[in-house]
């Protein structure tokens, strides 16, 4: 790993709860200054992994190295955390709450940072409001500020966009990208594949406690080659063409879409189609992260990544 610094390194990490193995011999490298997407179905070990990174949980075996430290028993001031569920004192005022969380992270004079962030997310008029008077989206923004106000080197964001309208989503999205550009490492856990694909430099997928995806979108696409073909026939044939070696075929609008099996090449499909009718459109469609996620996680015996 020479030449590349890692904010987080997990080596052979296992965590069990009773008889259940939540995380199974996990290896993970999160490069510094990148946005690292954490995806995976519910109950696959995502939150457990995040909690181990945050030192809320200790692994049973293996090492968790965060910002260069293996034994960071105490919560690290260089880490910021936005949990999946809102964790705010209902009866506190926004400003007091942010100042408290900043202080817990060792930031004494937090006023400039708080005011700057409130302004940045268009929430300065909420500073004196009590948390329980805030809307869900507002509370989410406050929770985000609480995570980043102490200028952490590494922030862990668990579903930061839930409950946000498109405008607020966009401003938070920009804020996260800006943090990354300033050198902050961002671990972003989300169920929104579109966001993950759009924002993350690296995608990591955990399924049943094991790593099933890890790499840039490009490398993931290389791993999951296009098996999706979209065609348009010249005569707009009423009948679907007969093609061997495909999983499924469907008419979507003016297009016909095939999912081809691994044994057959797209060239072969093209040849078969050309023999039957003339084509006006032939496209190899890259699978979206969404497709890949479903492909891995759907309850199918032959699906990839199942831990047995």
């Amino acid at each position, binding site marked *: 790993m020479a030449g590349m610094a890692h904010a987080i390194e997990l080596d052979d990490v296992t965590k069990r709860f009773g008889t259940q193995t939540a995380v199974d011999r996990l290896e993970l490298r999160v490069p510094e200054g990148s946005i690292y997407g954490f995806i995976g179905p519910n109950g696959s070990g995502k939150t457990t992994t995040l909690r181990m990174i945050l030192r*809320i949980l200790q692994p049973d075996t293996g090492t968790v190295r965060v910002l260069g430290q293996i034994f960071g028993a105490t919560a690290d001031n260089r880490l910021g955390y936005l949990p999946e*569920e809102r*964790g705010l004192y209902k009866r*506190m005022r926004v400003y007091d709450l942010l100042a408290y969380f900043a*202080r*817990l992270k060792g930031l004494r004079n937090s006023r400039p940072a708080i005011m700057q962030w409130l302004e940045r997310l268009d929430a300065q008029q909420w500073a004196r409001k009590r948390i329980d008077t805030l809307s869900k989206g507002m509370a989410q923004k406050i929770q985000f500020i609480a995570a980043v106000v102490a200028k952490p080197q590494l922030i862990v964001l668990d579903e930061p966009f839930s409950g946000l309208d498109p405008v607020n989503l966009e401003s938070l999205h920009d804020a996260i990208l800006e943090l990354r550009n300033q050198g902050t490492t961002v671990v972003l856990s989300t169920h929104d594949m579109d966001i993950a694909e759009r924002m993350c430099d690296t995608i990591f997928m955990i399924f049943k406690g094991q790593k099933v995806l890890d790499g840039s979108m490009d490398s993931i696409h290389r791993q999951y080659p296009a098996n999706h073909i979209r065609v348009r026939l010249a005569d707009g044939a009423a009948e679907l063409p007969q093609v061997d070696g495909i999983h499924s075929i469907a008419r979507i609008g003016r297009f016909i879409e095939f999912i081809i099996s691994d044994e057959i090449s797209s060239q072969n499909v093209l040849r078969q189609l050309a023999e039957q009718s003339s084509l006006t459109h032939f496209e190899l469609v890259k699978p979206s992260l969404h497709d890949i996620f479903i492909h891995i996680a759907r309850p199918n015996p032959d699906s990839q990544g199942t831990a047995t």
Partner: protein
Amino acid sequence: MQKIWAIAVREYRAMVGTKAFLLSVTMMPILMLGSVVTVSMLKNSRSEDRKIAVIDQTGRIYAEIQKAVERRNSEIETPNTNDKTEDFGDTMASKLFLEPIAVDEVTDELRMQLSNQIREKQFYAFVEIPPEVIETTANQTAKIKYYSEDSGLSEVRAWFEEQLNEIVRNLRLLDADIDLAKVTAASQRVDIRGLGLMEKSSSGEVSADEKDAMSAIFLPMGVMMFMFMVIFLAAQPALESVLEEKSQRIAEVLLGSANPFQLMLGKLLGTVAGSLTVFGIYLIGGVLLAQNRGWTDLIPFHLVPWFITFQILGVMFYASVFMAVGASVTQLKEAQAFLLPVWMVMMIPFFVWFSVVREPNSTLAVGLSFFPPATPSMMVLRLATGQSIPLWQPLLGIVVCVLATLTTVFISARIFRAGLLWQGNMPKLSEIFRWALRG
């Protein structure tokens, strides 16, 4: 350290800055003193006049009891506070009016008739005095019968018993030709005046304080209840605060910023500070009230340092237990189940305080005051009696308490850490023990 401080400050503000806190600080003494005040108010209130039928078969007693009733009635109308012997101040005094029932023989029919009249509120009671009560034969078994709806607890019955005994005794003496005046003089009661030990005051005067029931019983009891109150007023918010952090998922954020021990210690410090605030409020309130009423002597200022010491330890002990409970459950409702045994231990001093006040150096009192959960309240209870408690005992009490508190805080912090992240069903007791042992 900075984190602990930040947590303590927030905890203190959250505890003291709520309406619930203000309300409980004001309501607690009202509730606790309420019963005492109500009873004493009832005692001082005059109840209604009462009419009593008297069947005097001796023919000699009625006139005497009539005189006694007149004395009683005039005493009630113009209470003579200096005269302690005829004090109706602590009874529910009602004026009495007698009505003689003249019959040759008392039949059940008559009794029934009178009983019905009582039911109809024409009479309050009737008294049946058999003819032979004045006789002094050896096998004298005659009894005076008093019938009323509330004979068991009746103050009037007790008064009749006392008066009739005196009248009967006097009549018997008269019959035996004994000089009544001499007997009365000879049977004069001697009072014993209760005094504390001789002490030299700052002005060099040597004297002993008069010990009355007030300072002997109610002062220690009050001090003990006060201890209970300040501990309770601190421990309950501590539980609620942990519960809030757990149910609102704040715990996760906090544990990402501070370790469980820092968190727990900070919360404990904030709670102790809150409890000292309660103490301060009550102390100032008490002093002001005492000055207003001229009771300043009654405030045991010498106990304050002991009280504060044991208060801090007691609050730490119970607040950490309450926090562990708060971390183990998901709702306040569930917390009650876990708190029941804690409550029972907390209440121990309430069951034994009276015997401890009478004998603060008994084995029970000394033993219990070294039982850590009871140490804070038992020690101040014993110290407040004013009897000499060997100095090593409260000092050892502090040591015992510190050790127990450290152990409790340590175990509670483990339960706290594991419990905070526990969601869903209430954990089994075995699970909690596992947390306590293994962390």
